[in-house]
């Protein structure tokens, strides 16, 4: 093949020097991990979000056997909204995998026989054809095995890469693999796994029932939902992350996409450290909002100083407040007024718009009450979700702040005024049961049905007059207001 007649001294010199250059560049980056001796083997511990497997303590490279099962499951995307998720391990995001640089991974991708679709996997930690996708296209009821060496440390996304890729990813087929640097990561009190994704449903946001995937919306990049960890509210309420003041929290944050870049921010906190884009060697300090591209990740770390409910958001804010990109980190413990003196309590924290979201969905889920007793029952739920934070569980209010609703002369004297207080808000001094209050009651964007129910509940609790308020009453009351918005509210 080599024709000596065509070789000149110049080309020989060029060939030799570029070979030397290439070899030296190669040895600087991957050489160590290529040479690492593999000792023993172990089965990987996988974890479901928001948890992660424990930190690696071993000081040698080993063979790690990973068994990851693909499962197509129907589940909740939002209240009353169902979706068929395609998952790695049964949930969105997929299982968190944790290994160490230099490890040799034997990867088993198992496609459950009940599944309809073929699937494969591309792990961004893999150096090789398709990141593993080249070796793992698997039909339902079958399994593919391939192995790779983790040459680079970092926090990497993995996802299905079966065409059409955007559809597989849009259905939830993403997760993360952490390749720890050889010396590990510094110790923190809590490590959590958060992954953002955009969802494209045929019906608009909030439409109930099982929603099919919308190809058009996906191609146009117009998601109906943008969520953390696979569903609206996955990281809220009982699912909220927790910590205590004085503790450090590390968030492994990924973005499965398929399309949207995340502007990741935790309201009320500053990231003391960010390892941008999932790298583990270069830290940036004191970051408010960090960009996480689809198919990318970031490690954020911060110490907690004061109790609060810190809100995780995509700071492209309509995604947080209208599409679900909102999560919570609840920190409870002793206050530190030097750092934050304001009166903040868990329940009262309601960023503009979230209430609207929650109540609109409740409206769609519940059919109308037919009897007074039904009204009282339903009204209790509305009260708990919206009023209890200020007016307290037994309607006793908070002295000097929020008036009582229990045995309230203000309420019992004037039903129309009571309705107006809810629909239009109330400012200025009011006297209730002999005490003066000068606060601000916001207007509530609740349906006529909900307002009727909650007022009926209040009127029939804690020694109040026992009136009933109907949706028709509320509707008439709105119409009578000179400043009410035109058109019927839902």
């Amino acid at each position: 093949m080599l024709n000596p007649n065509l070789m000149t001294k110049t080309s020989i010199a060029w060939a030799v020097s570029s070979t030397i250059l290439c070899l030296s560049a190669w040895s600087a980056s991957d050489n160590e991990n290529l040479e690492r001796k593999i000792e023993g083997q172990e089965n990987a511990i996988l974890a479901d979000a928001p948890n992660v497997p424990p930190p690696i303590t071993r000081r040698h490279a080993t063979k790690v056997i990973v068994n990851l099962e693909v499962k197509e499951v129907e589940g909740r995307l939002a209240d009353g909204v169902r979706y068929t998720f395609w998952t790695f391990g049964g949930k969105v995001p997929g299982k968190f995998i944790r290994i160490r640089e230099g490890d040799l991974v034997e990867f088993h991708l198992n496609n459950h026989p009940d599944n309809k679709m073929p699937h494969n996997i591309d792990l961004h930690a893999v150096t090789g054809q398709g990141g593993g996708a080249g070796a793992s296209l698997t039909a339902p009821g079958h399994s593919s095995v391939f192995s790779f060496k983790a040459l680079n440390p970092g926090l990497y996304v993995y996802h299905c890469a079966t065409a059409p890729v955007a559809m597989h990813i849009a259905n939830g087929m993403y997760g993360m693999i952490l390749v720890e640097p050889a010396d590990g990561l510094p110790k923190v009190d809590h490590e959590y796994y958060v992954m953002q994704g955009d969802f494209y449903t045929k019906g608009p946001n909030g439409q109930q029932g099982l929603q099919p995937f919308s190809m058009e919306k996906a191609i146009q990049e117009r998601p109906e939902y943008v969520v953390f960890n696979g569903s609206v509210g996955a990281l809220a309420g009982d699912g909220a992350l927790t910590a205590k003041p004085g503790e450090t929290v590390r968030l492994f944050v990924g973005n499965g996409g398929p399309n949207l870049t995340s502007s990741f921010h935790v309201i009320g906190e500053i990231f003391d450290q960010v390892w941008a884009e999932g790298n583990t060697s270069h830290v940036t300090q004191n970051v408010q909002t960090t960009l996480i591209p689809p198919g990318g990740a970031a490690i954020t770390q911060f110490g907690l100083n004061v109790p609060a409910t810190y809100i995780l958001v995509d700071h492209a804010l309509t995604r947080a407040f209208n599409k679900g990109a909102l999560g919570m980190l609840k920190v409870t413990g002793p206050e530190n007024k030097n750092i934050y003196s304001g009166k903040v309590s868990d329940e009262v924290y309601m960023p503009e718009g979230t209430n609207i979201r929650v109540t609109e969905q409740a409206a769609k889920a519940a059919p109308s009450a037919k009897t007074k007793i039904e009204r009282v029952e339903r009204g209790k739920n509305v009260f708990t979700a919206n009023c209890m934070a200020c007016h307290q569980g037994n309607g006793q209010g908070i002295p000097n702040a929020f008036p009582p609703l229990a045995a309230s002369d203000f309420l019992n004297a004037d039903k129309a005024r009571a309705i107006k207080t809810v629909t239009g808000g109330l400012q200025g001094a009011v006297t209730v049961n002999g005490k003066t209050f000068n606060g601000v009651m916001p207007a509530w964007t609740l349906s006529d049905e909900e307002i009727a129910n909650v007022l009926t509940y209040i009127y029939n609790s804690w020694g109040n007059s026992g009136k009933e308020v109907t949706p028709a009453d509320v509707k008439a009351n709105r119409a009578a207001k000179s400043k009410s918005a035109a058109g019927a509210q839902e």
Partner: protein
Amino acid sequence: MRSSLLLASLLASPFLLGAGPGVERPIPAGSYLPFYPARAPLGKAQPEAPRKAVAVGAFRLDVRPVTNREYLAFVKANPEWRRSEIGRVFADGSYLKHWRADLSLRSRAEGDKPVTRVSWFAAAAYCRARGKELPTTDQWEYALDDGGHRAERMKDEILAWYSRPNDKVLEAVGRKPANGYGIQDLHALIWEWTLDFNSEMSGSEARSDGTKDENLFCGAGSLNARDPSDYAKFMRYQFRGSLHADYTTGNLGFRCAREETK
């Protein structure tokens, strides 16, 4: 005399066919735009308009997928295709797993459902025993294409089917309306084997299709899909690409086709 008759019939028994051929309809000659464009081998001029329609000659296609009952008749007559007899080279361990035994279904209702958990070898053998063949991918896609009628609606229906998890209980064949050719159940019931399911050169991960990988594939020119936004079709090609001939899956069945006799 009687003994030689007995001998003769014993000799003939392996060759007895089961029930008569499945109901079929003629599909007229025509053309359709294939998902992957036509290619000429390396060294020859590539087709001027690679994304042109592929001609499909007239043929006959089964109206419905082959049912469990029909397949049962086949294995009764052909013992080497029974679940406990079949060579592992011809079907994997899940072959006919949903049947109660070699020669019995779990219930009468199963009889009308499309047979699934059959490999390509088994499906091809069934069709040949009926004097037919599996349809080619072109024939099958052309029949589904239905002259382009209802294209958007069908895409939606197919995507909706992908969006639902596998039904725990398969529907019986023939319940949904036929298409313009009088063929039923080409979509939204099961995946189906084709004669040349292994004819697309797309690699395990289709993202690198479009780069000539001459080491892996001889003559594989660029493999750009015709309409990468047709997720419904794209998925079918990927599904077929994930199969090996011995695979069986719970929602993969087949139907047969025949050349049009003059």
